């Protein structure tokens, strides 16, 4: 490993790449700290800027945003009591009370340092387990890969609280969208006689359209409703007590380590992410604590559990994306889009074919963590002010940047129409409470799934082979189990709450 690591170090540690990472981290923090903007949106908006870059620079920028974003949510959480991203909801539980008690600097400092440590530990997990899993998955043949993709999609759908059927329909719809255009035998499908359809839809405008419009329009609606609630401008004069936060972290060694592990593992699972990690970690930390009654009243333990875990997702999430070529969440789906755009197919072969790029991701994550720490400590007051940017300014600018991004892909206005069309679809689906993550993952994984199924059938025309190969069978059993468990949970929830548990919970799946 050593050699390519040093080579990667050389690639990343040049001025231009470092500048890009810094821009990425700052943009990520800004994206994370503005409530309703989300990390996913930050990454989508930045995506078009990477078109003209080489893969390492493009990835570095994205990695910077990723790391910055997960640590940005804590700022508005602590200062305003509104989590900037769903990944920092439990940070508010203790961060806001602590700030109210007159220690906003301590709350922010502990959060930032915890985020930093979480990122570093999770990179360690990635470095150790990434290559191992990739090596193991080299044995996967088309049958296993098919089963694994099916499992990922059913798992993501079944994790959409109380909306599993709709989640599965969404996944099917996503897979279907990927069939439009020329197929692997060169036959046209679903082109409706329209010339532009024959190449199929570009993944990017479809993804941005579905996600961005639904999210931003939802923000506008919330803005309508919350007009009366005028948030008071908080005191931005924050001083960080460095010695105190060092002590806080040191006294919470075990908590920090446990939270980082929880975050890394949850990050590696498909369909989850920071939004799940911070809840699980907070809960576990409370269970292990000697004084659980103090949680929620403003103790550093809670902030550490939440912030370490959500940043640890960063390293964990890269494992399935790089080692298996299967992204577990929206952010990773976009990251995969960056790689594909530059002609690199993520998957087990990437470790042997592009070792330097893998090394660059490791180094990029580490460098981002350091820059994040510095940027947060130096500029935290600025970030806190930015988190107050009104949606009325934000929404038009982001939609315009989405349009520019879609256009820049191929220099055609058609791609902006695709963006608009899927924007409408995404908005209506989200109004019908259809989870959007399975839909987007369906679009991303669609081509691969079809290819794998038919490669398998060309090798062996019997469908039974999918169920006679042990690993493939195992994944199909997992897929079935994820559905059964979800049905059972829904029934239980329906009995206790009288049905209709969808609510806002579905939104929280997006980190």
């Amino acid at each position: 490993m050593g050699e390519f690591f040093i080579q990667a170090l050389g690639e990343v540690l040049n001025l231009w790449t470092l500048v890009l990472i810094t821009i990425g981290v700052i943009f990520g923090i800004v994206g994370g700290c503005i409530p309703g903007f989300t990390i996913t949106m930050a990454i989508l908006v930045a995506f078009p800027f990477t078109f003209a870059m080489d893969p390492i620079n493009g990835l570095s920028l994205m990695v910077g945003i990723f790391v910055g974003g997960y640590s940005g949510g804590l700022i508005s959480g602590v200062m305003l009591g509104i989590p900037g991203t769903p990944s920092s909801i439990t940070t508010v539980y203790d961060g806001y009370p602590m700030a109210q008690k007159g220690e906003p600097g301590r709350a922010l400092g502990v959060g930032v340092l915890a985020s930093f440590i979480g990122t570093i530990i999770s990179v360690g997990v990635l470095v150790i387990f990434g290559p191992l899993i990739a090596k193991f998955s080299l044995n996967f043949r088309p049958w296993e890969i098919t089963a694994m993709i099916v499992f990922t999609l059913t798992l993501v759908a079944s994790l959409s609280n109380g909306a599993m059927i709709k989640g599965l329909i969404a996944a099917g719809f996503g897979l279907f969208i990927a069939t439009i255009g020329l197929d692997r035998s060169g036959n046209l499908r679903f082109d409706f006689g329209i010339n532009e359809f024959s190449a199929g839809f570009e993944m990017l405008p479809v993804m941005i359209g579905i996600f961005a419009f639904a999210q931003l329009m939802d923000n506008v609606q919330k803005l309508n409703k919350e007009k009366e609630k005028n948030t008071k401008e908080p005191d931005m004069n924050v001083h960080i007590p460095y010695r105190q936060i060092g002590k806080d972290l040191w006294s919470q060694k075990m908590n920090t380590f446990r939270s980082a592990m929880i975050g890394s593992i949850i990050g590696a699972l498909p369909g989850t992410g920071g939004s799940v990690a911070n809840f699980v970690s907070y809960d576990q930390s409370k269970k292990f604590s000697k004084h659980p009654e103090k949680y929620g009243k403003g103790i550093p333990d809670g902030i550490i559990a939440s912030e370490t875990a959500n940043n640890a997702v960063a390293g964990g999430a890269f494992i399935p994306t790089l080692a298996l070529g299967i992204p577990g969440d929206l952010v990773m789906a976009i990251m995969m889009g960056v790689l594909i755009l530059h002609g690199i197919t993520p998957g087990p072969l990437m470790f042997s074919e592009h070792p330097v790029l893998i090394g660059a991701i490791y180094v990029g994550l580490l460098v981002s963590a350091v820059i994040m720490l510095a940027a947060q400590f130096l500029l935290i007051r600025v970030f806190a002010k930015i988190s107050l940017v009104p949606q009325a300014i934000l929404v038009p600018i982001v939609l315009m940047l989405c349009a520019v991004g879609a256009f820049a892909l191929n220099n055609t206005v058609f791609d902006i129409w695709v963006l608009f069309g899927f924007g409408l679809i995404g908005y209506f689906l989200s109004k019908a409470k259809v989870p959007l993550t399975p839909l987007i993952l369906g679009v991303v994984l669609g081509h691969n799934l079809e290819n794998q199924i038919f490669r398998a059938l060309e090798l062996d025309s019997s469908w039974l082979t999918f169920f006679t190969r042990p690993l493939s069978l195992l994944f199909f059993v997992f897929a079935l189990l994820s559905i059964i468990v979800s049905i059972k949970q829904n029934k239980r929830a329906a009995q206790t709450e009288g049905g209709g548990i969808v609510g806002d919970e579905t939104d929280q799946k997006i980190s």
Partner: protein
Amino acid sequence: MTKDRSLALAVGIFIVIMYVESMQIAEKSSWQVYGSAFYPRILLAIMGALAVLLFINSFRNKKPSTSEKNIKDLKSFWTEYNKIIFLFIAFFVYVFILPIAGFIIATALYLFISQAILMGVKRKKKLLLNVSVTVITTMSVFVIFNYGLNVWLP
């Protein structure tokens, strides 16, 4: 009509349209294991089965949905959704005039109008904020893409 039921019906209509269109796909050739229409039709079948399930399920939950009230009360629907409808229209017009008017004019117009929809133009301070955001954003995006990234904008 609950949301789930309308969704199930919409999916049904989608499947019918796509199935009819799938007849246009070339027949199976001798070297293919299955024809090109085979896989998308499986997907349509799965979606269809799920839509039927959703449809049946929608009768089980008797809880009245909020969407039913909306139809009766057009006025509250309008106050809740007018901005969103206007925003979609503004974006539609933006894409439409982009190739005709060029990036700078179209974008400046779009940003100004969208912000006006969201925060109004009555107060002078807001109007000033709107105009300055519009000008700065349009110009910086144009400069960054055209000169920094060498992406030609219309």
